[in-house]
């Protein structure tokens, strides 16, 4: 392969990986800290995408759509935790799967009733509308690079919050021993609500940012759910750092899988997952247990 095109493909892989991280980060938080298997994570992503479409069509700006849509998504996450998830912390995973799967069906049907089955496009914001010429035939959309930038900022932000703030300390401690944290006088219930709402918000934010890239259509949420679980498992459940590395790995595996082994492209990501789990069953940064 031409070295220039090799580099472009690396860029493709990294860029796709960063986008995947944005989607998967919320899932790994909820999964790792609340120990809740949230199948409806993809639905929050879908809600974000449709909010971006709906609010952009009304306001004319994706930024306004994000500013307006994000609080709505956080509120929804808050309500879902308070009214449903809260009662399932002590139940087994099967009950959680049942509830969150039910949520998928309900939210999909709501989407169909409100927005119908058509495919919608969301325009790229004006300031990122251009593209950079890479070769005589190929150029790179600036918005894709901007999304990568947003993802990187978010990675750093999340690391800082979790590693250096008091809230981050509670979250880390809560994921190890919830009862002990509670005994030390921390309101764990409130912490759980906060983490779940943040997870939903992150998924919705990813849906909004990705909407101009992916277009908006029914079933968009299920599409990304499986790949998100792959990333969470590879990275180690609950580890933001792990999810970041795993997302990049998956992005690169997917990109080079499509070019190098087109016959097995659909398997390349899962082959990487299998290999890593054989080597480290708890995932890259997961606690052995």
């Amino acid at each position, binding site marked *: 392969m031409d070295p220039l095109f090799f580099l472009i493909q690396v860029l493709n892989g990294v860029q796709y990986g960063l986008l995947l991280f944005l989607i998967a980060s919320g899932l790994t938080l909820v999964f790792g800290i609340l120990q809740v298997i949230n199948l409806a994570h993809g639905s929050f992503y879908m809600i974000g995408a449709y909010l971006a479409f709906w609010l952009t069509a009304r306001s004319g700006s994706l930024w306004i759509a994000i500013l307006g849509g994000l609080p709505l998504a956080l509120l929804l996450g808050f309500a879902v935790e308070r009214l449903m998830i809260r009662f399932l912390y002590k139940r087994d995973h099967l009950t959680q799967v049942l509830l969150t799967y039910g949520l998928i069906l309900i939210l999909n049907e709501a989407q*169909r009733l409100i927005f119908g*089955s058509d495919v919608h496009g969301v325009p790229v914001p004006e300031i990122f509308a251009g593209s950079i010429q890479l070769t005589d035939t190929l150029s790179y959309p600036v918005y894709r690079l901007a999304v990568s930038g947003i993802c990187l900022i978010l990675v750093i932000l999340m690391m800082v919050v979790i590693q250096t703030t008091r809230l981050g300390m509670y979250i880390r401690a809560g994921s190890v021993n919830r009862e002990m944290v509670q005994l030390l006088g921390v309101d764990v219930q409130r912490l759980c609500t906060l983490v779940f709402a943040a997870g939903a918000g992150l998924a919705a934010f990813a849906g909004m940012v990705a909407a101009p890239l992916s277009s908006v259509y029914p079933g968009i949420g299920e599409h990304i759910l499986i790949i998100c679980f792959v990333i969470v498992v590879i990275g180690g459940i609950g580890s933001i750092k792990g999810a970041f590395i795993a997302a990049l790995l998956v992005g690169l595996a997917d990109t080079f899988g499509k070019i190098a082994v087109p016959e097995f492209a659909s398997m390349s990501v899962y082959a990487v997952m299998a290999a890593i789990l054989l080597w480290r069953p708890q995932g890259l940064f997961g606690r052995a247990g």
Partner: protein
Amino acid sequence: MTRHSSDKTLPMSRRAVLGGAAAAAAASTFPAPAVRAQGAKIKIGLMLPYSGTYAALGNNIADGMMLAINEKGGKLGGREVRYVKLDDESEPAKGAQNANKLVVGEKVDILVGTVHSGVAAAMVQVAREEQATLLIPNAGVGDATGKLCAPNIFRTSFSNWQPGFPMGKVAAEMGHKNAVTITWKYAAGEESTQGFKDGFATGGGKVTNDLRVPFPDVEFQALLTEIASIKPDCVYTFFAGGGAVKFVKDYDAAGLKKSIPLYGPGFLTDGTLQAQGASADGLLTTLHYVEDLPNPINQKFKADFQKATSRPVDVYAVQGYDTGQVLVHGLTAVKGDAAAKKDFYAAMKGYKVPSPRGEWTFSKSQNPVQDFYLRKVVGGENRYQKIAVKALAEPTDACKMA
């Protein structure tokens, strides 16, 4: 599933009375059996997607079909019609079960359906096992009128190979020598690109690379980069729905649209133009229909369909309408006796369908022999350019009837 009020007349007894060509011939001489046939309603099983992604397609097919039948007084061969509707949910796993529900359970005289190729494949199996009359108003799966063709299976739409062929021919006529195809790795994509390849080869063109994306993945960036490094004269693509929107937008965003023309079957720009926006401007596609087709039947159909449903027409409404026309013609010839299969099928097969898409006939494999049109996206609409190929039939090597 919506069931209409139950009608307990058993078609079996009528079949016993009127079975065979001799009885049907007698029916045309003596009015008595025809009068008896008029007494019972003819049952049409409509197995279509009434929910989910393809719901709009299912509704347009059903409404188009009923429009054709209502234009002729709402009767088929003099008999009242009862429609038994069943939502197939575009779910291949339930295809055989649902088809059996209509054919064996409801004992419908005629089965009509469907949109999704996987579900249609299951319906074809059931139709072959039960010797049921099946009309396919959309699904383009090649086997239905290929390897699995049968005298009781008719298709009023297209086979996946068909819309690809004329695009290949046009691409070669425009002077392109080599091409790359890109589609999902599934049967419909392979059949469509094979059509393009065959058409392209008639003008000396050669497909150098077949790029494939796992279905239903929509991350195209890696393969777009691959296309930029191959630098073909043109690219042929087959994607539908969300994939079609994203691919057209990504292709434009990657700057490829400026230097390497993108072609596809009409489905690339049907029902997706609003979401594709300016990225679709100027795209050339081929299909057996385009809304502004300049013929009087199409003008009348557009107005009538709009009046009846308050919705604009599309290719699916046309396919439904033609399904209705074919049924009206076939059942008129046998005075409503759907059990007189030999004459019923012969009448349908010999019919020159006066369609909004232009007149067409059935091939020996019972798939339309029809004109294909070159269309261009102008200002968010598909516009008629010219006839790309006249009276195109699908290759019938695989069908034993042909």
